[in-house]
């Protein structure tokens, strides 16, 4: 069966160049970067080049990059490594659980927490951030791009508010990095999280930018690695992969690949809206990352559509997978105020660097016929057809 993968916000395939770059660092150049001998130096050199490459993607100093095990660890370190008992933190209702859950845990540990609402297009209002400030506010954490809708948040304005108040601003840029230019100076954040496997590096590697002078405490103790902010022998192959992927992402953005990606996504989105009635884009008409289209198909269950499409070879996603693998309605769509049935009827299409025009064509053929079959079995669709 021909398989098409349009779930790149979940994870991306490792690019061949990335895999090639990593390959020597498993068996051949296997050293521990902390060792003083040749093997250690070889590993150390690879890590530091990768650090420079990641720093170049984010527009910061190499010394401001901390390698982590991924986005979740980066978010936890940025939040739990900074906020202390008695402090107040501000975040939003549409953050990834990697931000929301550590924030909620801090509340249990005696911190204050404000979770800001979003508008109907999943945007945080900077004025809400300003109004939420308290004398003891220590941190604002608002994501750069939402994983479900792809909608970009007004992070620069929020960073200004944080700067005026003299507090830290963290942004989870896991879904933004590589898709749109991410410049920590331009944003004005104190810390920023990225994840390797969302930008065609392997799973299990990520990085946290921490602005020089920001007081962060480590979560993992046990060595002097990563400027004592993240103990543990470095994942050298992963770091090398992330470095290569960051370099490829930067080159792609410099070439304008993001505009090509947006054109492909728009063709998919408009094609679906034109071919299937009673659909709509969640988070339309506001700036979005170029690869994401979240579309509601009224009268059907997104869960069934995802399964039906998967059985025909198209991989997309709906909502959030709970621990068993069952799908729960996305907290993001619920927070946007989407009607319950629409939150259940929404599908996320997310493109990757490997996505081709032909795959978009095939998707545009497959989705309408599958939706039509599901709607034939939908009581609410039938009822409506009868009443018309």
């Amino acid at each position, binding site marked *: 069966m021909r398989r098409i993968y349009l779930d790149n916000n979940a994870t991306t395939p490792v690019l061949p160049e990335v895999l090639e770059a990593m390959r020597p660092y498993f068996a051949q150049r296997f050293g521990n970067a902390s060792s003083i001998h040749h093997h250690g130096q070889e590993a150390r050199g690879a890590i530091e080049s990768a650090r420079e490459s990641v720093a170049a993607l984010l527009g910061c100093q190499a010394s401001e990059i901390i390698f982590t095990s991924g986005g979740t660890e980066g978010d936890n370190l940025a939040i739990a490594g900074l906020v202390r008992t008695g402090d107040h933190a501000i975040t939003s209702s549409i953050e990834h659980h990697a931000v929301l859950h550590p924030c909620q845990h801090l509340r249990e540990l005696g911190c204050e927490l404000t979770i800001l609402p979003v508008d109907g297009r999943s945007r945080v209002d900077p004025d809400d951030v300003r109004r939420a400030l308290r004398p003891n506010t220590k941190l604002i954490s608002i994501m750069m791009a939402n994983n479900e809708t792809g909608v970009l948040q007004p992070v620069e304005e929020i960073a200004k508010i944080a700067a005026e108040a003299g507090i830290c601003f963290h942004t989870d840029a896991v879904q933004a990095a590589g898709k749109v230019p991410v410049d920590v100076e331009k944003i004005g954040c104190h810390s920023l999280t990225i994840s390797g496997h969302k930008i065609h590096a392997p799973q299990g590697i990520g990085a946290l930018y921490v602005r020089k002078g920001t007081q962060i405490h480590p979560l993992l103790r046990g060595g002097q690695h990563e400027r004592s902010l993240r103990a543990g022998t470095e994942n050298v192959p992963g770091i090398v992969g992330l470095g290569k992927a960051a370099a490829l992402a930067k080159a792609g953005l410099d070439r304008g690949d993001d505009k090509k990606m947006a054109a492909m996504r728009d063709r998919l989105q408009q094609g679906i809206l034109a071919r299937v009635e009673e659909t709509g884009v969640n988070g339309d008409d506001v700036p979005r990352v170029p690869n994401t289209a979240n579309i509601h198909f009224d009268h059907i269950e997104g*869960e069934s559509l995802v*399964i*039906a499409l998967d059985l025909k070879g198209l991989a997309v996603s709906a909502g959030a997978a709970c621990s068993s*693998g069952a799908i729960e309605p996305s907290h993001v769509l619920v927070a946007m105020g989407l009607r319950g049935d629409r939150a259940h009827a929404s599908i996320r299409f997310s493109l990757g660097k490997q996505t081709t025009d032909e795959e978009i064509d095939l998707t545009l053929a497959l989705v309408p016929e599958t939706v039509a079959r599901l709607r034939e079995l939908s009581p609410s669709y039938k009822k409506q057809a009868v009443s018309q």
Partner: protein
Amino acid sequence: MPKDTFSWGAALHAPREGALNKGVRLGVKLVIRSRKLSTETIAVAMSGGVDSSTVAAMLRAEGHDVVGLTMQLWNQRRLAGREGMPEQVTGRCCSLDDVYDARRVARQIGIPYYVVNHEERFEREVVRPFVEEYLSGRTPIPCSLCNNHLKFDQLLTVARQIGAERVATGHYARVAYDEARGRWLLRRPADLSKDQTYFLFGLTQEQLSRTLFPLGNMTKPEVRELAHHHGLAIAEKPDSQEICFVPGGDYKRFIDAYLAEQGESLPDTAGELVTTGGEVIGEHAGIHNFTVGQRKGLGVATGSPLYVIQISGAQKQVVVGSEENLYSKSLRAKRVNLISGEDLRRPMRVSVKIRHRHEPAPAVIEKIASADTGAGEILVTFDDPQRAITPGQAAVFYDGDVVVGGGWIT
């Protein structure tokens, strides 16, 4: 060599000594049966247990396109650690361990597998009614509600949506089309000790026409043997007995914890303990603590053993009496589903099962009009008095091994 024979043969790799002959015998049976089926897509309701796993492996070996589906019905962690509830999640249904087992089987036999979320509906159609039935003094059977409202309703819908016209389950029962009557019949399985038709009496003709019970002609030991042949790691997994969402089977604690979670207080159903003669002999803390036939925990001491004979929800009374008082010759069943197409215009001789572990007893059934609603009810009159006929349980009528239908005991 026909495809189905070949695929079955391929599944017989390296069987244990002695198991081979049996496997071949089973294999022949399967080949015969599989000829009746086309190679269509079949959804298998997988629980992670040995029965449904074996069904999936069998159908796969017969060459069907099989899709495994597990219904996520209840989040076991929801009530874990609440007052009186275990800290650790040990319940069987929808536990992560079971999903893990089902997924592992699916991977091993090479079929796509999905977990579908029906928690909201399960709570609305099964858990809520379960709690309310107990609070009204009845003893509910959630498995029947689940079969009617979830497994053979929602799951059939999901199956059709994803391109599978038929759903196979690991129930021990048989379903077949009867040309003479022009109806789909539900029949008891070959292994009567595992008979699950009691929980399936609510199935409609449409549901039966799209349902497969591949274990209907097999015994449990044969199923385990077959699971071994397919190399399924769950072959020796113990059977689940308890109500899936009630850990440890303690329904009273479950009701307390559920209502507390919902922010509702337990309604006050405390009242009097009375004898069959109407004499008040004590008080009780709430009718949901009792079930007909119960002997322990009545809170009164008398010379002879006392049993719960009847629970009156309206008067909050628990009627107690001697063991003889437990026996009665008749019952009324409401919300009756008739499967075999009998119109019951005249009384019919059948045997009737009044709880899961009850040997069907000879009886006559006839239609009557309900006094309060005028709707059709069935009057069951047994040849011999039956022990502890319990409102809220089902009465299922059998003509030989054919399920005539069933209803809820009033």
